[in-house]
């Protein structure tokens, strides 16, 4: 927010400063959070491109059956995996609520649980790949299936790396109840929720519809 002052005599005085202008106060959002939000916006576009390909193959090419015969998707396993990933959103939220209240043990517990749930999701997905019976080379269906779920899996992996860093820092005594003191958990938390939401959309689109 720019500012200026006038003294009693009526002479204007403007506060000049060098460099980029100060952030408008109305944004009231720290740079780290704004950064992850802008990153997520770009990620949404990336996923959008993959979904566009998926719907092109499914709607425009329009094969007689979907998935094409004889392929089948393990909906039940993916459903359980979805529940695991969604529950990890609750644990990361618990971690952040804990540190907001100054509960460091809750923070550590929440982070570790989130990491474990994320790792379990990734393990089950890799296990699913092994037992699917088709590869990315099998028809366009195989390509887009592995591309979409693989893209998401890569994001889960990145999320796990971020959670690992946050967990290590938590066990080393970092982070505090004030908002600016736990950005290192807040930012990965937002990213993790984004990963969860994307999976919900991938699951519903690829496995259910």
């Amino acid at each position: 927010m720019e500012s200026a002052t006038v003294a009693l005599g009526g002479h204007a005085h403007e506060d000049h400063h060098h460099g980029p202008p100060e952030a408008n106060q109305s944004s009231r959002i720290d740079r780290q959070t704004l950064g992850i939000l802008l990153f997520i916006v770009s990620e949404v576009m990336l996923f959008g491109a993959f979904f566009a390909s998926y719907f092109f193959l499914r709607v425009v090419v329009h094969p007689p059956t979907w998935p094409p015969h004889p392929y089948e998707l393990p909906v039940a396993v993916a459903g359980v995996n979805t529940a695991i990933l969604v529950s990890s959103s609750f644990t990361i939220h618990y971690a952040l609520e804990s540190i907001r209240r100054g509960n460091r043990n809750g923070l550590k517990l929440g982070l570790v649980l989130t990491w474990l749930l994320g790792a379990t999701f990734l393990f089950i997905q890799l296990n699913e790949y092994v037992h699917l019976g088709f590869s990315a080379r099998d028809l366009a269906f195989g390509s887009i299936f592995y591309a979409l779920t693989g893209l998401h899996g890569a994001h889960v992996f990145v999320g796990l790396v971020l959670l690992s860093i946050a967990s290590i820092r938590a066990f080393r005594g970092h982070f505090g109840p004030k908002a600016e003191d736990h950005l290192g958990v807040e930012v990965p938390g937002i990213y993790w929720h984004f990963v969860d939401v994307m999976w919900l959309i991938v699951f519903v689109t690829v496995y259910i519809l």
Partner: protein
Amino acid sequence: MHNPLRSEADAFRWVVVIGVGSVSVIALTLLTRPVIGVVWMAALIGFGAGVAYRGARGSLPRTVELTRGGDGKHRVLVVANETVGGEVLLDEIRRRCQGRRCEILVVTPALPTSRASHWASDVDEAMELARQRMELSLIAIGELGLKARGEVGDADPNVAMEDALRVFPADEIVISTHPPSRSRWLEHGVVDRAREQIELPIAHVVVDLTVERAV
């Protein structure tokens, strides 16, 4: 505009809402046909986008946290843009500060020239224009013998007021607008919303610049 996603807690709420929506899509698809699930999913996405847009506009009433000075000074927050140098407004400020130790903060919202400029964050010109108006009004207020300072605020006047009140413990607010036939602020209910959200005396001053220029 407000960012509807400012923290992890906001993101978590979205996860819960999208999760519930996904369950309803799954249930509908399994109970009926996939095409119905697709239609329902599209409807939910449209509804969600609408809710996010409404939230981003900040149209829901929110309570503004006020700070109090308590040092005997009477603080007046003046919110105006094109009418900031109007004689009627200056008279109102002079009247309110008569016989008081008065401190004035003039906030001029930086109004983007178009919707496209707003979305592209192309606000440099708008901020410069608002700053120029604000400085001229500060000089005019200074000539009344009053102490004033100014800030360029958010494009949304209500958000600009909210921002200002976080750093300026105002005792009252003066909002200056064009006459009702030409005022976009009045059209958008800026004064009504301020009265709804802020528990401070709010005076509305109408400045008709065409009349003032003609005189």
